[in-house]
Each structure stands twice: as structure tokens, then as C-alpha cells.
């Protein structure tokens, strides 16, 4: 029956009022909102990057680079373990993604195997029993032991590296002073960076395009890089190229004296004598001690500062540097010094990030899109309202009220959920209105049909609402199935559209059926007070 209990009426009206309250802040400026009492909601609808303008970058971490770093660490760990166990090694190298250990005495193979198996770690969920080892340590030819990372182990390392990279990227982006950047993981090896309002992405790309691994190395005392390249490179040393392709290469000890992760601060500055841009830095205690010891022992000799495997400068140590602070000079410009300082402050990236997708929208286009969306919304909405009232008279007015409630609640829910309105989202919103109208069309056509078949007005209205509801639920649920698939699979524009569509479907049943039914209930009550017989104005 068409009856509504009092508490139900109150609940419906309160829901609508709450919707209005949630939508209200969208019509005021931020300054005006600040003066509102605190109990009124203040949050405004988030605009997507395509509407407010901004940059969207999808970064991908190279698994191969993570693997290479891990293999390097494994080799060093293996060397250390065998040395501690006093097992002599005649060769230690990496080939085909496997660390090969050649023992001096093949009879020590079993002891070495036991020692090296200590490197194996479990990854995955130990409690669920899905854990797997991250390495396999096996015997190769006589006296050779192979240490090979497993696929699961690499995956685990990549996941960890991405988490670390997200933190680093966040610190670097924050250093740019932009507002509300979003930095999130996407999939297993990707990072999504969204910076609203940013138009020129060049600086952002420079900042996150470098791993910025800084290290301080000992220079080989006698052999020069050129000599090493011709002949044999001494064990434990490696030739590092200079910053530009020509000269500047140095033969350096591979294990650095101090690494960049022991820096606590780095700032751009100017050299007081030459007035060139430089970077001043400070080590933490452990770093300061190591650097101090090294410089004290090597006064008069050069050392090299290496950034991302390139030598940026190789100054000669004049005095022991005991205070833990120093400066790097190189061929910096003011800008590049500033950038490197930011990168050093925010730490190195575990591996290089490649940009696999970039989308930017300028603020002028965003504003144009909002204007266009508004205009289309007004025209489309007005046409829908006119059509509905023309077709269904007084009941058409009720349907229009239902539509307004639908629109308000959709925007309110989106504000509440914090989901952003995108350009396809506007289309979804407008389409949701068309779908909401469909519910009313179904009900009213049904009422007309029942009247034609000779039912009394009240019975016809009642039958119209009850019968049409099944159809409405069916049709909305199928659309919902579609929207959920879009949300599940979609990225970017598809997802924004799916969110608005889903919310629109959920609110349309309440707005177009429940609210309209309540209005019809009020109308019936008022009509029955004044008249004995009446016609249904559809």
C-alpha cells in the first residue's frame, strides 16, 4: 500500500536534508567556508586532474635493476661469510643472474654450502604456509657453488623496492612545494604520481628521473683509469666513467667508503671563493666517523664522489675532515645544484624509475571543460525536466523533485567518499539522470496502463509502484554489474566514470522510487481531503 509510517517519512526527509547539507559547501568559496560553524560539513567535491589541471605520471621500476643490485649484495655477503668461516675462494663472479663461487679447495664444498645456505631467507606468508625461499644454493661443477635468486625472491625484493621508492618520490615531490600530490603503488612494480595544478612536468621528471645514489670512493693510488682500461683491472676496483662521455674516468675501489644513505642533510650553496654553485652536506655520526678516519689516513691523496655510477668530482684531500660535513663541487648550475640537493636529502631510489605513461592537463583546458560540462548539464537537465513535466503533468513535477534529490545525493556521496569528479564522470552523472528518469517513466507508464485497464486511481498508483519496482531493480542491477566490472578493470578515465555511475545507480532507486512515492502519498492525502473523486494527473 501507499502508506508511509511517520518515522519512515522523517527518515526520508532527513536523508534528503543531509544530502543538501553535504552538497552545500560546493557552492561557496574556501574563504567563506572557513567562517562556517564547525558542525556543518566543509568538504567540497574533489575535482579530477582533467578538470582542475595537473600532471599524472605512471612510473615503472625495472625488475632487472633490482635483481642486479641484489646479486651485487649477495656476492659481497657470500665473500664475507666465507671469509669469516675461513674458506678460501679463488673466484667470485656474477653470470647469467647467478652468483658463482669458485672455491680454492674443492674438498671444502660441503662446508661452504652449509655456510652459504645461511643466506637463504623465507618470503611470503609463513603463517599461511605459502612461504618460499628467496634463493637456491646448489653445487655446480667441482668446487663451484651457485647462488640463484628465485622468481618469488625477486618479486619480494621488487615489492620492497617499490615501497621504499614511494617514500623517496614523496619526499622529492614535496620538496617542490606542490599541493596535495598523490603517490600510490599501482600493481606490483608501478607507482602513480598525481600532482594537481602542475603544468610543466619537466622539473618533476628531472627530480624523480634520477636514482641519486651518492657514494664516496677511494681512488687507486697508482694505476690510472686509462691504464686499467688497457690492461687488467686490479681486484676489487672498477673504472667509473666521468660525468660527460670524455675524460673524468677514475679507477676506484668498488666498495665505497661512505654511502649517500648516511647523509643527514644536503643544501645548495655558493663557493665563497669561486662563487660557483656547490652542495654542502652533513653525515650522520657513523658516516662522519668513517669519513673522518678515511680522510685522516689519506691526506694528500684524491678521493672520488660518485653519483649514479658517474664520477662527479675527484678532489684531493687537504686535511682530515672530522666534523662530518663537507661540500661537493662539480659543474653545477644553480638549478642542478638545487635539484641534486633535494635528491640527496630525500634519499636515493632503490632502482631507476621509468616513465611509462604521462598525462597533463593545463588549467585553462580544465576550466574550459568544467564550463562545457556545466553548460551541457544545464541544457540536458532542462530538457529532461521539460520532457518529464510535459509527459506526466503533476506527477512529472514529483519526478523532477526526485531527479533533483538524485543529483544532490550523488554529489553528496561522491563528496563523502572523496572520489574525484572527472570529465567522463560528468558524463556518467548526466547519464545517471537519464537512467533515473527511466525509473519514473516505468512507474508512470505502468500507472497509465492500469488506469486504461479500468482500475481505480488509488489501486492503479499502488500497482504501478509495486509492479514497476521489480523491473527497475532488475534493470539497475544489471547496469550495476557493468559499472562494477568497469571499476574493477578500469584505470583512469574508466574508473572515474564507473564510480559516478555506480553511485548514481544506488541513489536513483531511493530518489526516483522512494522520494517520488512519498510525494505521491502526500498528494493523495491532500486530494482526498478536498474531493471525493479525482483523476490521476499523469
Amino acid at each position, binding site marked *: 500500500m501507499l502508506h508511509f509510517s511517520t518515522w519512515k517519512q522523517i527518515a526520508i526527509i532527513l536523508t534528503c536534508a543531509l544530502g543538501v547539507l553535504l552538497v552545500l559547501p560546493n557552492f561557496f568559496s574556501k574563504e567563506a567556508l572557513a567562517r562556517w560553524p564547525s558542525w556543518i560539513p566543509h568538504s567540497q567535491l574533489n575535482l579530477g586532474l582533467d578538470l582542475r589541471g595537473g600532471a599524472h605520471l605512471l612510473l*615503472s621500476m625495472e625488475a632487472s635493476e633490482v635483481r642486479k643490485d641484489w646479486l651485487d649484495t649477495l656476492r659481497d655477503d657470500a665473500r664475507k661469510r666465507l671469509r669469516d668461516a675461513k674458506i678460501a675462494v679463488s673466484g667470485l663472479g656474477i653470470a647469467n643472474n647467478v652468483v658463482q663461487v669458485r672455491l680454492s679447495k674443492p674438498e671444502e664444498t660441503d662446508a661452504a654450502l652449509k655456510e652459504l645456505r645461511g643466506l637463504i631467507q623465507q618470503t611470503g606468508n609463513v603463517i599461511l604456509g605459502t612461504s618460499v625461499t628467496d634463493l637456491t644454493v646448489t653445487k655446480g661443477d667441482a668446487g663451484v657453488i651457485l647462488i640463484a635468486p628465485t622468481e618469488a625472491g625477486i618479486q619480494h625484493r621488487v615489492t620492497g623496492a617499490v615501497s621504499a621508492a614511494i617514500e623517496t618520490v614523496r619526499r622529492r615531490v614535496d620538496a617542490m612545494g606542490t599541493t596535495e600530490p598523490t603517490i600510490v603503488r599501482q600493481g606490483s612494480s608501478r607507482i602513480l604520481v598525481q600532482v594537481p595544478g602542475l603544468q610543466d612536468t619537466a622539473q618533476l621528471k628531472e627530480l624523480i628521473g634520477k636514482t641519486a645514489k651518492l657514494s664516496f670512493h677511494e681512488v687507486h693510488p697508482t694505476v690510472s683509469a686509462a691504464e686499467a682500461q688497457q690492461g687488467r683491472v686490479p681486484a676489487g676496483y672498477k673504472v667509473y666513467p666521468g660525468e660527460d662521455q670524455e675524460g673524468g674516468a677514475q679507477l676506484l675501489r668498488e666498495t665505497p667508503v661512505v654511502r649517500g644513505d648516511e647523509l643527514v642533510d644536503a643544501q645548495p650553496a655558493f663557493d665563497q671563493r669561486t662563487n660557483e654553485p656547490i652542495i654542502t652536506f652533513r653525515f650522520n655520526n657513523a658516516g662522519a666517523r668513517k669519513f673522518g678516519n678515511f680522510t685522516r689516513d689519506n691526506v694528500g691523496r684524491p678521493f672520488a664522489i660518485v653519483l649514479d655510477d658517474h664520477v662527479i668530482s675527484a678532489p684531493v684531500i687537504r686535511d682530515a675532515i672530522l666534523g662530518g660535513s663537507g661540500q661537493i663541487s662539480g659543474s653545477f648550475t644553480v638549478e642542478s645544484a638545487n635539484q641534486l640537493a633535494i635528491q640527496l636529502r630525500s634519499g636515493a631510489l632503490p632502482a631507476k624509475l621509468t*616513465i611509462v605513461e604521462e*598525462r597533463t592537463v593545463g588549467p*585553462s583546458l580544465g576550466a574550459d571543460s568544467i564550463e562545457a560540462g556545466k553548460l551541457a548539464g544545464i541544457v540536458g537537465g532542462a530538457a529532461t525536466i521539460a520532457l518529464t513535466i510535459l509527459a506526466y503533468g503533476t506527477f512529472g513535477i514529483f519526478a523532477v523533485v526526485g531527479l533533483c534529490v538524485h543529483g544532490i545525493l550523488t554529489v553528496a556521496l561522491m563528496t563523502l567518499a572523496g572520489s574525484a569528479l572527472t570529465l567522463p564522470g560528468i558524463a556518467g552523472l548526466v547519464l545517471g*539522470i537519464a537512467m533515473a528518469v527511466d525509473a519514473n517513466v*516505468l512507474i508512470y507508464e505502468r500507472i497509465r496502463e492500469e488506469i486504461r485497464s479500468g482500475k481505480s486511481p488509488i489501486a492503479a498508483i499502488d500497482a504501478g509502484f509495486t509492479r514497476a519496482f521489480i523491473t527497475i531493480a532488475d534493470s539497475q542491477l544489471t547496469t550495476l554489474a*557493468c559499472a562494477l566490472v*568497469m571499476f*574493477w*578493470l578500469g584505470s583512469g578515465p574508466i574508473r572515474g566514470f564507473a564510480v559516478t555511475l555506480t553511485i548514481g545507480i544506488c541513489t536513483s532507486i531511493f530518489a526516483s522510487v522512494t522520494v517520488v512515492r512519498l510525494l505521491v502519498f502526500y498528494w493523495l492525502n491532500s486530494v482526498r481531503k478536498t474531493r471525493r473523486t479525482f483523476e490521476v494527473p499523469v
Partner: protein
Amino acid sequence: MRFLPNFKGYDFFPHDLRLPFMRYKGLCLTLSIIGMALALLIVGVRGFNYGVDFKGGSMLEVQANSGAADIAALREKLGRLGLGAVQIQSFGSPSDVLIRVEQQPGGEAEQQVALKKVTDALQGQYITRRTEVVGPAVSSELRMTGFIAVAAGLLAIVAYVWFRFEWQFALGAIVALTHDVLLVAGIFALFQFEFDLSIVAALLTILGYSVNDTVVVSDRIRENLRKFKRMDLNELLNLSINETLSRTILTGCTAIVVLLALYIFGGEVIRNFNLAMLLGVVIGTYSSIFIAAPLLGYLGVKREWVGTAPQATKADAAKPPSGRANLATK
């Protein structure tokens, strides 16, 4: 409520019209099958004009700082950069230009290099309003997910229809929906409209809209099957289509009016999306009337599941049972 004017709406639809849809079901189905085959053929021969999302490469929307854009000069200037095929077209207003640079060989970083070359070349004369750069890895993924999304959407819908109705209805729905998607895709391939991620979203929405239509007709068929147990199936299908026709037309008109507003005023960026939606609504409305229901005439529907319900009269107000309709015992 007292101050509200009481006036009747204008019931413009002639309800006593009994259009003989079912008489032409063979013709409709043949035409639809030919349409689908043609669409497949066009997609196969011409292929899609994939956007940056699916093809990879770069796209820039730029605006001349003053006056109209000189497309010939731009073409000449960007052609010299050695970036392979560079497409330049005006976009909306005379000062706006859309530049597309094909995917550069060599991987992800090369796309960034190409973008930098183009923006450097435009420096000073144009402001960049929008850029999209999609590398080879992402574009092939997006192509894949786009395809899976449409297929999964189709399956989700069919599963739901199967759950709510008989399998014949689900089969009718899947044919009608495939028809809609194929035809819209065919038109996009024929006119080489740009096909990107937003078109996939449009296709999914078209699925949603079209099945909405189909479900409304199917609901009525189910109801009538209970009401008129002895009626000839073709006649019953025809009656059901006719009874829901006023709703089909009115909702279709509202959707088309709204989409037209979006198409005309909604801006250049989502114009293709709106075009796909417009086509889809028209084709989807057609398919639920001329494909889904007539197909039932061929497939036949088990009539006995109407079951124990008493012989209903037209005024019978019994609600059709929810849940799977054939649960009723014989």
C-alpha cells in the same frame, strides 16, 4: 501540495497501436546478422584508429598564443624533427591544434625524448593545454584490459539475466548486446573515429543501457507468460513489446536528448565518447525490440514453468515471484 497545480501529462503515445513486430522477425534478424557481419568485416579490413592509449606515442593539444594556428607551418616544423609520422589537425576552435606523434622505437624513454623535442619546438608560439604520453608497455596492457573489460561486462550481464530469467532470455540478451557493441565498433572503424580508453567506457555503458532495455521487455514477457497461458508465443511477445513500447521510446528520447546536449556542449575532449554513447543508445534500443524478443520466438520458452499460479485475469495483481522464475513447481 494544495498549491500544486493538478494537470495531466500529455500522453502522446498511441497505445492502441499494435505494431506487428513479430511478423517481421525473420527480416529483422537477417538484417541484424548482416549488420554484424559487415561490422566485423570493416573492423577486420580497416582496423581501428587507435588513440594514444592503445597505440602508444604522444598526443598534445596546443593553443596558439595569438590568432589562428598555422597548421601548415606546424606540420613543416614538426616534420623536420625526425619523429616519424606526425599528425596535426585542428581541434574545436581555429586556435587549437591536436598533435599526434607516433610511438618511437626504442622503448619507454624514447617517448619522453620525442615529447621534449615537440614542446621545445613549440616554445613561445603555443601553449600546451594537454599532453598524453603512453609507452609501449602500458599501451599493450590497456588494449588488453579494454578488451577484457568489455568481455567481462558482457558476461556479468548475461550471468545476471540467466539468474533472473530463463536461459533463452540470456541468449537473446547476449546476441543483442554483441550486436550493439559490434555495430558501434564497426561504425568507429568505418569512419576511423579515434578509438581510445573512453570509447571502452562508452561501450560498457552501452551494454548497461541496452540490457536495461532488454530486461524491461523481458520482465513484461515473463509477466504476460503468467497472465495469458494459452496465448500463442509470437502473439504474446508482440504484445509485450507493444506494451512496453511507450516506455522504450520515452526513455530512449530522454537519453538521446541528454546525450545530444553533452555532444554539442560538452566540449571537444569527450566528443567521441558522447558520439559512441549516442550511437549505442539508438542501436541498443533497436536491438532490444528487434533482436532480443524476436529471438525468443525462435528459441521458444518453456511455458509450463508458469506453474501453479491460478489462471490470472488481466486485473490480477499478483506479484511475479522474485528469484529464479522456474522455481515454481509444476
